[in-house]
């Protein structure tokens, strides 16, 4: 219950605020989920699609950059351990994109709030202080992850029922594999058509 939000908050902290060593990219956290007992095929397929969707996006300063590392981990962890159908793959991928985008808005609000109260949240004796900045950032990410995880867990369990339409019985792998092909083609076209490399 608390492990996923705690790790998700750490992922958000690493990918956005500290170190930035690509330690928590989906290709790495997918392996963590496999170690945790998740079925490797759906987890690695979803990680691959997520990486390719955002491959040509650059996080720059004040722009609202989708926090896909966080989105991937929290949604995949909430989706559960087993194989997925076409419907659940579609829902998971849409949720990853939604959560990633939502998180970028949350970060914007968090930054504005922290700036407004910087003396108590980021500073110590009127000077930038790393301990309080990391502590309060992690705390805010943890509570955000906890609320999001509860909502996602309830939503995905509600969808993942045996009665959930014909789409629920179709082999789901086709969707992420085809998406990977389309996204790789788009990325190749994007790179080859760019003049100033």
């Amino acid at each position, binding site marked *: 219950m608390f492990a996923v939000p705690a790790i998700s908050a750490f992922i958000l902290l690493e990918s956005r605020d500290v170190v930035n060593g*690509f330690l928590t990219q989906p290709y*790495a956290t997918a392996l963590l989920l496999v170690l945790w007992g998740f079925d490797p095929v759906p987890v*690695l397929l979803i990680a691959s699609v997520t990486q390719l969707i955002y*491959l040509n996006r650059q996080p720059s300063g004040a722009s609202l950059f989708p926090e896909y590392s966080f989105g991937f981990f929290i949604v995949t962890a909430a989706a559960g351990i087993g194989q997925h159908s076409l419907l659940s793959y579609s829902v998971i991928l849409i949720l990853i994109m939604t959560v990633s985008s939502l998180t970028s808005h949350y970060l914007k609000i968090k930054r504005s709030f922290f700036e407004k109260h910087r003396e108590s949240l980021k500073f110590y004796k*009127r000077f930038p202080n790393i301990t309080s900045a*990391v502590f309060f950032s992690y705390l805010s990410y943890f509570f955000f992850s906890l609320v999001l995880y509860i909502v996602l867990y309830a939503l995905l369990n509600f969808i993942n029922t045996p009665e959930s339409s014909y789409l629920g019985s179709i082999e789901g792998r086709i969707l992420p594999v085809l998406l990977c092909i389309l996204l790789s083609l788009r990325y190749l076209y994007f*790179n080859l058509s760019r003049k100033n490399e």
Partner: protein
Amino acid sequence: MNKLSRRTILSLTVRTYFIRIFYNYNNLFGEGLCYCIFPFFESCGVTKRDDILAKHLKTFNTNEYLSGFAVGIILKNSESGNVDLEKTKDILSSVLGSIGDRLIYRLIFPVMTLAAVNKFVISGFKPDMCTWTVIIFLIIFFNFFNFYIRYLGISEGFEKGLDALKIFRSSGYKRAVYLLTAARNILTVLLLVELILYLKASNILLFFFDQGLKL
């Protein structure tokens, strides 16, 4: 003082890892810069934090991976009497931002990601020992680079000032960019081929058409 002690460079390097946590819409990396450069002034005996804040808590932008160059060059400028500090910061803001984005997010990161995804497809999305080795190697390699570029940026920036940025116009750098661009494009083509082979080998399409015919 032409060179910083190794201890000060290490302390500054570690601090650059946290520069982004102070990012805000008011002065961008201004607060982060104040936090990063503090050990230098402390080692010089200047511990008046208010003076540092008054001088550096202004709008400043950089790329987090190349922030070492920004810190080194700004400290060099501070030591030589703050000649054109604001002008130097403006140059760093524009140059480091664009070079960093291009080098890290358009080249190194895609190469890492595509290598990892390629390995996933080759192993049939079932991680084997080789997959683990590739991912761990990629992470260690990037973090070694991440540390080295920050450390080098601080030491070179402090020694040469703005001339340290000439490294990004050297033939070695251009060659590295060329190789990374080629690697990225080759890995994308390889990924496409492997995905098509995976699709064919795993009979997913066949299964899908079967289901369609049954309907």
